[in-house]
């Protein structure tokens, strides 16, 4: 049975104790060391669990359990370099570690204080090795610590470590304020919904009527944008922050029950959430008379079956009720008639994770960061054609250029930047000319995209924008709930046209039809999914009109992606006649010409385009760069 925390005094006592313990762990007494291993889903899938176990084994073998500790921590955010191992007190950060490296790290770093150079991160731009996390350019421009745990060094499965960094201090403060004061505090902070809509959170809370009927607080953890994993990482790294945020929100709207709606594809997040809820119930931090007040609150978890549309709040409510996840028409809004027809507020994971910070640190501190339009920070899942892939928390107002080049480390392979897609399937593409746009809700919409939940996918010259639009349309087509006809049928008809264009059968008229239809889907659809479904089409058509025209007029794909409009070609001047491509070809369509190649006695190769299946294995295998797409 965990120690109870039933009064503010007990919380304070526990906080001081835990903070002291955590500091001791990181500062380490002489001869003592602490190892932490990244325990996010991404790193776990690269087997970071086995690294942890290997360390445990080695420590045991060396009988150093009392001197060296090892545990999992939440996401460090630099996913392309994972799994990470961090050593305290030196704070040396090792990247791309495998279980085999554990022995070496132990022998050198733990025992002899020697740095294992080969496991240090090499900055792609400076080519320098970097030892400490704070020296990474990737982290320098970030502002971690609002929604994410600042250095992610706490054990997400240990409530005490969460308390050590201030968990439930915000709740404690809120419980000594009136509901209205809490709402005002959040209003003043300027917090806007991080799920995509950007609606002011405090205002959303204030819509809940002050009646006696049951009310519900709902946390939307149904993160579904392709490539986005902010919410997953936030829950996995610090479930207490989200629970505390929900409790504060629950207090503010007068709810006694909160529902976490998390997709079932996030088993680790669900497990950590469940564990935390159980623990908090045992500690008395969830249940009746929280911290000695009249406030009672309980948390429940509902798993989503992975339908994208269930991220739409009314569809999510239907799903919690056990119904098919289909949006409801509004009005009535959920704040008036939501879950089981009672007033309900749905907030995104990241939004709720920001709430304890606001209450703990005060709205002024939260609002000191950000732009006039949007205060605070935002977590992005940076991905695509960028050197540093991962999860970043930046102050709002950071420009796209800073995000891509300073944090993201630029485009790999010296390729040319083409576009950045923000806002997931509902968002749009921004180009070179938009790179100095400061990131906030208003500016991104003005530039023709949207912030969305925080997906940011960088594209380079090798991406065909028609193909990108087609990718998102395929996704939306599969994910439409099928309720309203513009979204159900319209997105399919858009996809039909895009497929026709990408197959090289497009006509100029298709572009007019596509644009017209895309606009009808925007104006006619029932919910936000449909209303934004064609944004990827409209924004790429606007930003890259010449690329669309090349497809339908010249039947050419400038990026050589659309297979029916490109071919692989062997440049005779470069071909050495080594036969590797011919051996790699799965359909044996590469033959010889009678033209002598550079290697004496060999002949230049040639692709029989009529047989080629355009798999690209010849090109990726060629060591001389002799094969090109054209």
């Amino acid at each position, binding site marked *: 049975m965990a120690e109870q925390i039933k009064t503010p005094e007990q919380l304070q006592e526990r906080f001081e104790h835990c903070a002291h313990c955590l500091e001791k762990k990181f500062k380490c007494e002489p001869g003592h060391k602490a190892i932490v291993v990244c325990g996010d889903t991404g790193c776990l899938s690269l087997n970071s669990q086995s690294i942890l176990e290997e360390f445990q084994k080695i420590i045991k073998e060396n009988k150093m359990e009392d001197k060296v500790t090892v545990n999992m921590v939440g996401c460090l955010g630099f996913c392309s370099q994972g799994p990470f191992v961090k050593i305290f007190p030196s704070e040396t950060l090792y990247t791309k570690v495998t279980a085999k490296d554990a022995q070496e790290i132990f022998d050198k770093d733990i025992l002899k204080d020697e740095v294992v150079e080969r496991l240090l991160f090499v900055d792609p731009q400076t080519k320098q090795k970097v030892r400490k996390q704070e020296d990474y350019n990737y982290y320098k421009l970030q502002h971690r610590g609002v929604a994410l745990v600042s250095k992610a060094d706490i054990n997400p499965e240990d409530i005490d470590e969460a308390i050590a960094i201030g968990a439930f201090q915000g709740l404690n403060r809120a419980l000594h304020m009136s509901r209205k004061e809490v709402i005002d505090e959040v209003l003043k902070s300027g917090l806007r919904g991080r799920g995509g809509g950007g609606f002011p959170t405090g205002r959303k809370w204030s819509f809940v009527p002050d009646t006696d009927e049951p009310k519900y607080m709902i946390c939307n953890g149904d993160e579904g944008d392709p490539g986005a994993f902010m919410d997953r990482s936030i829950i996995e790294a610090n479930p207490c922050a989200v629970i505390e945020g929900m409790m504060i929100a629950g207090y503010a709207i007068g709810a006694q029950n909160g529902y976490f709606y998390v997709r079932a594809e996030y088993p680790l997040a669900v497990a950590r959430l469940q564990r935390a809820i159980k623990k908090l119930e045992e500690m008395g931090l969830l249940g009746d008379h929280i911290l000695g007040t009249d406030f009672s609150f309980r948390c429940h978890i509902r798993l989503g079956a992975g*339908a994208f549309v269930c991220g739409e709040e009314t569809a999510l409510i239907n799903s919690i009720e056990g119904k*098919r996840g*289909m949006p409801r*028409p509004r*009005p009535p809004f959920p704040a008036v008639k939501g879950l089981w027809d009672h007033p309900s507020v749905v907030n995104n994971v990241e939004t709720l994770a920001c709430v304890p910070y606001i209450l703990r640190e005060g709205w002024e501190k939260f609002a000191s960061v950000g732009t006039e339009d949007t205060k605070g920070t935002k977590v992005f899942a940076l991905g695509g054609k960028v050197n540093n892939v991962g999860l970043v928390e930046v102050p709002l107002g950071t420009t796209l250029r800073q995000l891509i080049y300073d944090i993201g480390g630029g485009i790999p392979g010296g390729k040319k930047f083409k576009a950045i897609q923000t806002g997931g399937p509902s968002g749009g593409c921004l180009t070179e000319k938009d790179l100095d746009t400061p990131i906030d809700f208003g500016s991104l919409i003005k530039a023709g995209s949207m912030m969305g939940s925080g997906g940011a996918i960088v594209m380079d010259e090798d991406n065909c924008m028609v193909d990108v639009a087609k990718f998102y349309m395929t996704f939306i*087509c*599969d*994910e*439409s*709930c*099928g*309720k*309203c*006809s*513009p979204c*159900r*049928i*319209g*997105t*399919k*008809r858009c996809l*039909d046209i895009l497929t026709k264009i990408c197959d090289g059968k497009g006509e100029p008229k298709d572009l007019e039809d596509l644009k017209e*239809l895309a606009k*009808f889907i925007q*104006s*006619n*659809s*029932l919910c936000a999914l449909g*209303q934004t479904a064609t944004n990827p089409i409209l924004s790429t058509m606007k930003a890259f009109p010449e690329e669309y025209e090349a497809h339908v007029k010249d039947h050419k794909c400038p990026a050589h992606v659309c297979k029916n409009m490109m071919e692989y070609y062997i440049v005779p001047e470069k071909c050495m006649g080594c036969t590797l491509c011919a051996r790699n070809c799965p359909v044996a369509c590469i033959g010889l010409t009678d033209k002598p190649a550079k290697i004496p006695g060999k002949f230049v190769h040639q692709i029989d385009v009529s047989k080629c299946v355009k798999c690209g294995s010849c090109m990726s295998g060629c060591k001389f760069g002799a094969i090109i797409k054209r």
Partner: protein
Amino acid sequence: MALVNIKIEGRDYQVESGLTVLEACRKCGYQIPSLCAFNHGKCSRASCRVCLVEVKGARGLCASCEYPVNEGMEISISSAKAVEARRASVELILSNHEKNCLQCPKNGHCELLHVAEMVGARDGKYVGPMTPKTYDEVAPGIIRNSAKCILCGRCIERCKEAQGIAILGFENRGFNVVVSPVQNRSFANVPCMQCGQCVNVCPVGALMEHSEIDKVDEAFRQGKKVIVQTAPAVRAAIAEEFGEKIGTPGTGKMVAALHRLGFFRVFDVNFGADLTIMEEGYELIHRIKNGGVLPQITSCSPGWMNYMEYFYPEVIPNVSTCKSPHMMQGAITKTYFAKAHDIDPKDIFVVSIMPCTAKKYERQRPEMDKDVDAVLTTRELAKMIKRSGINWQKLPEEEFDQDLLGEYSGAGVIFGVTGGVMEAALRTAYFVLTGKEYDKIVFENVRGLEGVREAEIKELGIKVAIASGMKNASKLIQEVKEGKSPYAFIEIMGCPGGCINGGGQPYVQPNLLPNEDDDILDTYRQKRANVLYSEDERQVIRQSHNNKDIQKLYKDFLGEPLSELSEELLHTHYNPNREKYPEGK
């Protein structure tokens, strides 16, 4: 009701607050095309996006079927944006709709076609592959063609609202969504009552009765003696099929039409209804006098019988063993009538005209599949009349054939409305139990269209209850199952309002009936019921036991109610182990 001021196309109107924009516009004389919206222009789905209008200040276009009016609202139906948006929605729906309109069984009643005309939809504006098609013709009562379906969801709502069993729902995701029974099964392999309420509200040809016109044609071709019998409720609605207003009696013209279609005899199932009252009434009296299982529950409605077998087999001992009236009459036609006319029963082909799709299932039940050979709905009969070139307006009024099964009482007529069987039974039970006729004839307190009603019959010292629609009835049945029912006799009808609102009756589509009142969906049941009650009033004989042909039937053939021969011909049994989800699709 408070009033609000609104503007439509810049003109000022005052309408009741609480209305939707669609309703308010209709009241002010504007017709906004709509598909998924049904009763009152209200709907819970707002899914077809055909009724979009522009509302000043609102974000984007508004679905008028769902959007409430409020003070100062400015609505534009005819703005270019709204007009084009509505047309686009319809054109998109058409692009995923099987457009073989000429062969469509819904031809003439298709709301999509009507809406397409209203919005000026262009041919082939959007084209592309269609959602994979399912054509389910396995169930005897209802056919489902998913390629016609526009996913408006009316059928889903109706099944929930009327029967509370939600047989239909959305399956799959995205473009592959279909409205279907679970797992895209056939209606035959789910616990569907086959009541046809879903068919009644389908705006297109996605849900239809399983037509048996071909069977009837074949019987004529084979030279069989085709005898037709029409259910009481058919006369209350058939005229609607020929452009008459709802509530126009159609008895005489219907009989005239049937004569012209060449039927060997034209009988009224009211005779069978009178016979049912004799059997069922005596069964009730027998139960009361001998301490049998009470309450007794009626068995006329095959939809209810299906529901009972699927969901409440425990109440089988309470359910009357009587066959339904047309099955009884079919059995008598092929025995008593055949014998009297010296016809081989094999040469007789009995066609029932019913307001019902479940009757098509009922006649195929193995325990009584010889009694009736085909069941046509009211709608199918109208189709037969139309295709034979008969001009309804010019038909004379004719009488049913008086030949052994010809006479009927007023008690039989009111079988077609909820409470009618109860009232007919009470008229006879009163006579049997007290030895004299009930002087008022009419038992007013069992009449009405509310879903559940109870009445105390002081004169007989019993309490009775009446319910129509399974959602309403389930409470009564649950009481019976738990042994807590305070009633002696319960009448249950499968469809809300009884047979006048059966799944085979003419469609009531306000959008296609410009001459009917705005509130026709609230009043059509009462209007049809009135046809039956006034026919009852005009009858000289008002009680089943006074029907001379019935008396002759017992004297010459059956002996007495519940006799051995009666049991054999007129009674049936039920399946306590009916599988809800049998294997196979």
